[in-house]
C-alpha cells in the first residue's frame, strides 16, 4: 500500500470537489429514483449524489456502449458512398462500485479483440472513472466475492473509500493525478489514515465471503457437469423472456445492427442497438427457425456466458456479482439460487457414482 499513491479528500471538501468536476466536463453519478432504485444521471452538485446506493437500474455500460449508436452514414443508389461515424463525449463517472468497474474491464477485453471496435475504444478513452468502495454488502442479492469483485482491482482513475470524516483516495492513473492537481480539494495522507484503510479492508474480508458454497476456481467445472441439469427446465416455466436480466447486466454486450433510410429514401444510417439472447427473435433465422426457441435454453446460455465460456476466452468470469439480474427479475430467477441448485444437483450425482 505504501508505494502506491494515496491522497485524502475531507468530507467538508466533497461539495466543492463534485462542483469542480461538474464544471470541468459532464459528470454522472448515482442518483436516487425512489422505490429503492438508483440510476447514473448527470449531476452538478454533491447533494444530488447518493453515496450509499445499491447497484443502479442500468450499469455503466450505457455510457460505454450506448443503447443506440450510429456507426455509418451512407448514400444509397448508384455509387454508394459511406462514411464511418464515431459518437463520443468527454465524461466523468463518479461513484462506480467495484462490480461495475469489473463490468467495464470485461467490456474492454471484448471490444479490444481483433477486429477492434474503434467506436467503443474511442469513447472509452474519453471517460474518466472515479470508483467508490462498498464497505459492506449492498443487499442480499450481491455475489461479488464469488467472482473476486468485492475489492478494488483496477479499472479506475481515482478510487474513493469512505472512512467517516474523509475519503481515502487511490490515484491510479495520470488522469486521476490531473484531477487531484486541478481540483485542489485533496490533502496528503497520514499514516494513521492508511492504517484505517487497512483495518476496513480486514473487516471487509470477514464480511465478504463466497456467497455460494463453492471455491471460485471450481465454478467452470461445476458448469461442465451441469449442461443437462434439471435447473434449466425449472427456469423454462418461470422465465418471461423479458430480457431484463441481460439489459441490466454490466457485461452483456450483444447488439443488433440495422440500416435505416431517411424520408428521402436516399440517405441512410447504419446503427447498432442493444440486443438480448433472452428475446424471442434473437436466435431466429431466415425461414423462421429459432435456434433457441425454449426459454430454458436461453437462460442456460446466459449463465454459461457468465461462468463458463468467457473463462476459456478471456480467463475471467463475466459475472461481476452485482446482483442486478436477480433484483430485476419479476419471476424471481435468482442467480445465487440457481448456482446453489446446480451445486446440489451436481453433488447428488457425484454421490450416486460413489454409492
Amino acid at each position, binding site marked *: 500500500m505504501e508505494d502506491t499513491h494515496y491522497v485524502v479528500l475531507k468530507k467538508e471538501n466533497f461539495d466543492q470537489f463534485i462542483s469542480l468536476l461538474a464544471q470541468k466536463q459532464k459528470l454522472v453519478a448515482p442518483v436516487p429514483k425512489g422505490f429503492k*432504485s438508483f440510476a447514473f444521471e448527470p449531476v452538478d452538485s454533491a447533494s444530488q449524489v447518493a453515496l450509499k446506493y445499491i447497484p443502479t*437500474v442500468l450499469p455503466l455500460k450505457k455510457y460505454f456502449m450506448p443503447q443506440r449508436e450510429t456507426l455509418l452514414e451512407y448514400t444509397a443508389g448508384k455509387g454508394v458512398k459511406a462514411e464511418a461515424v464515431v459518437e463520443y463525449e468527454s465524461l466523468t463517472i463518479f461513484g462506480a462500485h467495484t462490480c461495475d468497474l469489473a463490468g467495464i474491464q470485461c467490456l474492454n477485453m471484448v471490444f479490444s479483440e481483433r477486429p477492434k471496435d474503434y467506436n467503443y475504444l474511442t469513447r472509452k478513452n474519453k471517460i474518466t472513472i472515479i470508483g467508490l468502495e462498498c464497505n459492506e454488502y449492498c443487499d442480499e442479492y450481491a455475489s461479488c466475492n464469488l467472482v473476486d469483485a468485492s475489492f478494488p482491482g483496477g479499472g479506475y482513475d481515482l478510487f474513493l473509500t469512505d472512512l467517516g470524516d474523509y475519503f481515502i483516495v487511490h490515484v491510479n492513473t495520470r488522469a486521476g493525478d490531473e484531477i487531484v492537481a486541478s481540483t485542489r480539494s485533496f490533502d496528503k495522507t497520514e499514516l494513521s489514515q492508511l492504517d484505517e484503510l487497512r483495518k476496513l479492508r480486514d473487516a471487509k474480508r470477514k464480511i465478504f465471503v463466497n456467497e455460494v458454497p463453492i471455491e471460485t476456481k471450481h465454478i467452470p467445472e461445476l458448469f461442465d457437469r451441469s449442461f443437462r441439469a434439471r435447473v434449466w427446465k425449472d427456469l423454462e*416455466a418461470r422465465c*418471461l423472456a423479458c430480457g431484463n436480466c441481460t*439489459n441490466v447486466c454490466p457485461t452483456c454486450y450483444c447488439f443488433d445492427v440495422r440500416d435505416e433510410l431517411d424520408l428521402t*429514401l436516399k440517405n441512410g444510417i447504419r446503427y447498432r442497438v442493444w440486443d438480448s439472447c433472452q428475446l*424471442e*427473435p434473437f436466435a431466429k433465422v431466415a425461414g423462421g427457425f429459432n435456434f433457441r426457441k425454449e426459454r430454458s435454453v436461453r437462460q442456460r446460455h446466459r449463465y454459461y456466458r457468465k461462468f463458463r465460456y468467457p473463462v476459456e476466452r478471456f480467463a475471467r468470469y463475466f459475472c461481476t456479482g452485482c446482483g442486478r439480474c436477480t433484483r430485476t427479475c*419479476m419471476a424471481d430467477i435468482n442467480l445465487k439460487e440457481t448456482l446453489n441448485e446446480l451445486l446440489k444437483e451436481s453433488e447428488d450425482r457425484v454421490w450416486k457414482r460413489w454409492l
Partner: protein
Amino acid sequence: MKKPKVAFFDFACCEGCQLQVANMGETVLDVLGLIEVVEWREVMSEKWGKKVDVAVVEGSITDPHAVKRIKKIRKRAGAVIAYGSCATIGGVNGMKNNFPLEDIKHYVYGDSHRFFPTEQTKAVHQVVPVDYFVHGCPVYIPEFVAVLKAALQGIPYYPPDYPVCVECKLNENVCMYDRGVSCLGPVTRAGCNSWCINNGNICYGCRGMVSNPNEKGAQDVIAKYKIPMELVLNKMNMYNKCRELD
C-alpha cells in the same frame, strides 16, 4: 419518379391515430415530400376511389357494411397498413365481444336495432390480408414513419417481438411492480419505447401480446405480487379480446 399514392381510411375507431399522423409536426413535410395523399377523410375533402399504392387503415371491422368496404379497399390497394390497436388487434372495440350480440344490439339501438346489423369485432387482418402493422393506441409516430418507409421500399417491417420491459428497462424506469402497481408490460409487444411508463402510467397492452408469451409464468408473477387474476384479465381484455379470434 412519380410519388406513390397513399390513402387513409377509417372504420370503428376514435380517429385518434389519424390525428397523431396529422399532428406529427415537421416530419409531416418530409412525409408529404415522399407520398401523394389522395384520400383522407379527416384532413381533406377530395375522394379518389381508384387504385392506390398504399392504403392506411384505422379502426376495427364491426358490421357487414365494414366487411364489404374493407374488401373493396384491399382490392384497390398495393399494400395495406393496419394502424392503431383497433385495426391491428381489435383494440377497445373488442370489449364488445364480451357480450352476446343480441344484448349489444338492444342495449345500443333499442327498438331500432334491426336497422343496424352488427357483428363480432374483428381486427383488419381477421377479415382481409394485411401487409404491415403499426400497433398502439395511439400509434407511435416514429414507428409509423418506419413502417411507411418500409412499405414504400417494398421491404418487410417486423414489429418487435419482445415485451415492453425491454424498452422500459433501457429507459431506466422504476418497475411498476416495484411501485406496487400491476402493468401489462411483461407480456405486451414493445415498439412504443415504453411511452406510457416513461410518463408515469402503466402499460395497458395496447400493442397486443408477444408471439410466445409465458402465460403460466406471468400468472405466477401476478400471484406473487398478490394481484387478483380477474383484474388482470379485465385489463388484458380491454385491448386484447379479439386475440381469441386469431
